[in-house]
């Protein structure tokens, strides 16, 4: 197990963090964007439950980005619903079926709206919606680089910031490969999704999952969610939605698999997600080696400068 401390699959993140063997099972989110209807109930429930401040509440800011006026995840938006209006891939079943359609068995439901020709010619448009959230990485860059120990792994395998410890150094902000965590202006500390740690402690599911009316946000043991997600992916592929793919579900990826993963209908970057993120600390041993060499250069450089013989050989002495 020690070989996977910095990267690669890790079976039990909580045990790795030092919790006893009877710790709770690792939980997570499976966000199935193919049934997201963009209602933003998750954003609202998150803000309400977690009491997230909005210093710009008086300002009505319209971004011009479809129905997205939240913009991005940040210190006071821990769920963010993205809206993408685009041409439907001609090869996809979404170019032929209508919105919120069911297949002959009555169990295929897709929320991406389709408008335009019904025969698969170009011109069909669709509307992708996706609720983004902290990925609670198996190998979390924010957690690795935090110098105060404010960021910790919980007994549920999630990653949280302890507000009473954080001193706002902002290292985590630059270390997150997803651009999730941020320092809050006026407060000075870093904040992000806690997966409703207080609710988990009380045996409740996180507020966003509770509020989601279409079960686009599913909460549960991570192992079970991965099975559920694979079944949904197979169902969509069988129905001809060939562009469906899972994101963050693979323990062999650059972050050891995400605790919050997704089913997407396009490339990750279309949703503002990095295509293949790698935890920065994977390369840390090499970085320290180069710093060691550099430190040696500093010492050797000064010693050489005081070596008079060197000077005489090179340029005939200094005086």
């Amino acid at each position: 197990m020690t070989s996977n401390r910095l990267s690669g699959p890790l079976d039990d993140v909580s045990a790795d963090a030092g919790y006893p063997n009877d710790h709770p099972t690792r939980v997570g989110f499976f966000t199935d964007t193919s049934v997201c209807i963009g209602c933003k109930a998750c954003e609202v429930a998150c803000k309400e439950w977690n009491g997230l401040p909005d210093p710009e509440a008086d300002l009505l800011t319209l971004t011009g980005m479809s129905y997205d006026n939240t913009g991005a995840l940040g210190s006071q938006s821990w769920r963010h619903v993205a809206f993408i209006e685009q041409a439907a891939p001609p090869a996809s079943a979404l170019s032929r079926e209508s919105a919120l359609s069911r297949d002959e068995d009555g169990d295929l439901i897709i929320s991406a709206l389709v408008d335009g020709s019904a025969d698969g010619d170009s011109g069909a448009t669709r509307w992708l919606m996706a609720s983004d959230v902290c990925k609670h990485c198996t190998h979390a860059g924010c957690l690795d680089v935090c110098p105060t120990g404010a960021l910790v792994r919980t007994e549920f395998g999630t990653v949280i910031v302890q507000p009473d410890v954080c001193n706002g150094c902002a290292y985590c902000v630059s270390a997150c490969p997803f651009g999730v965590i941020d320092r809050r202006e006026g407060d000075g500390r870093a904040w992000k999704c806690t997966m409703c740690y207080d609710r988990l402690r009380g045996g409740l599911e996180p507020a966003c999952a509770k509020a989601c009316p279409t079960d686009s946000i599913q909460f549960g043991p991570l192992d079970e969610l991965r099975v559920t997600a694979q079944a949904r992916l197979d169902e969509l592929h069988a129905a001809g939605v060939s562009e469906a793919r899972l994101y963050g579900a693979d323990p062999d990826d650059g972050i050891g698999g995400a605790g919050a993963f997704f089913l997407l209908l396009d490339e990750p970057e279309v949703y503002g997600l990095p295509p293949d993120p790698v935890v920065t600390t994977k390369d840390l041993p090499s970085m320290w080696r180069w710093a060691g060499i550099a430190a040696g250069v500093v010492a050797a450089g000064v010693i050489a400068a005081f070596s008079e013989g060197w000077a005489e050989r090179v340029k005939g002495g200094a005086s």
Partner: protein
Amino acid sequence: MTEQLTVPPADFASYYGRPILKVTRWREPHLPAYLFLGELSGAAAVLGVAAAARRRPALVRAGRLVAAAAAQAGAAFLTAELGRPERFHNMLRVAKPTSPMSMGSWILVSHSGLTAAAAASSVTGRLDGIGSAAAAASAVTGPLLAAYPGVLLANTAVPAWHTAHRELPVLFAGGALTAAAAAGLVAGALSGDPADLGPARRLALIGAAVEGAAEFALERRTDIATEPYREGQSAMMLRGARLTTALGAAVALGARRSRLAALTSASLLAGGGLLAKYAVLRAGVASAKDPKYVVQTQRDAKT
């Protein structure tokens, strides 16, 4: 620039052109100032010890005083950068090898304590044995303080920093040497003894060679993540830093007896080093702001 042809044309989608990463909260002048002062303090501490071995008292004193003052000033900039400065001491709750900032905090605290003791002994003329022992220990913490910020920046998701994890520590090592050379040139000019200028002038040449080589290496890279070192404002600043440092070294060559030349060289060396820190910060910001750097870098790594 033929090497840029190897970078494939950007053809990727993004979410309304928005950044994927959060742009760093580290800002000007705090971060560049901290990097500069840290490397100055680190190499100046070594300079003081080397000067003691060569019996150059003016340089010993200068090395100790500059090392102590720069460490304190650097720590002040670092603390001012925090969102909650009054909680700086939380840096010392834990020691985490995966966090270069944790390691750096311990190095900085050790180094500033040692350099303060050495400087105090030098100023008061008391407790010479303890002062020399502290100075000797600071010659160990000094190079670490100068080099670790390369890991501090590289151990992030910022493409221009992470990808340059070999060049950045060397760049900061070179910067440490030129900064200490600048301190030595000023001390030599003040002491009026040409023999004090000799080591400082040689240090200027060595430092400029290391710093210039690292800057040149950054500019010569061809991958997309390091593009901000080749193009745009950050690239102009990096080139400017390289030329300023080279000029400072050239003037140092001729500063055999001239006080004015020594002071001019010191200004150029310090200015070039500081400018390089600004260039590195801005390159990081540029590479975090445009999603193409994240997407293309990760695509290239996959293929």
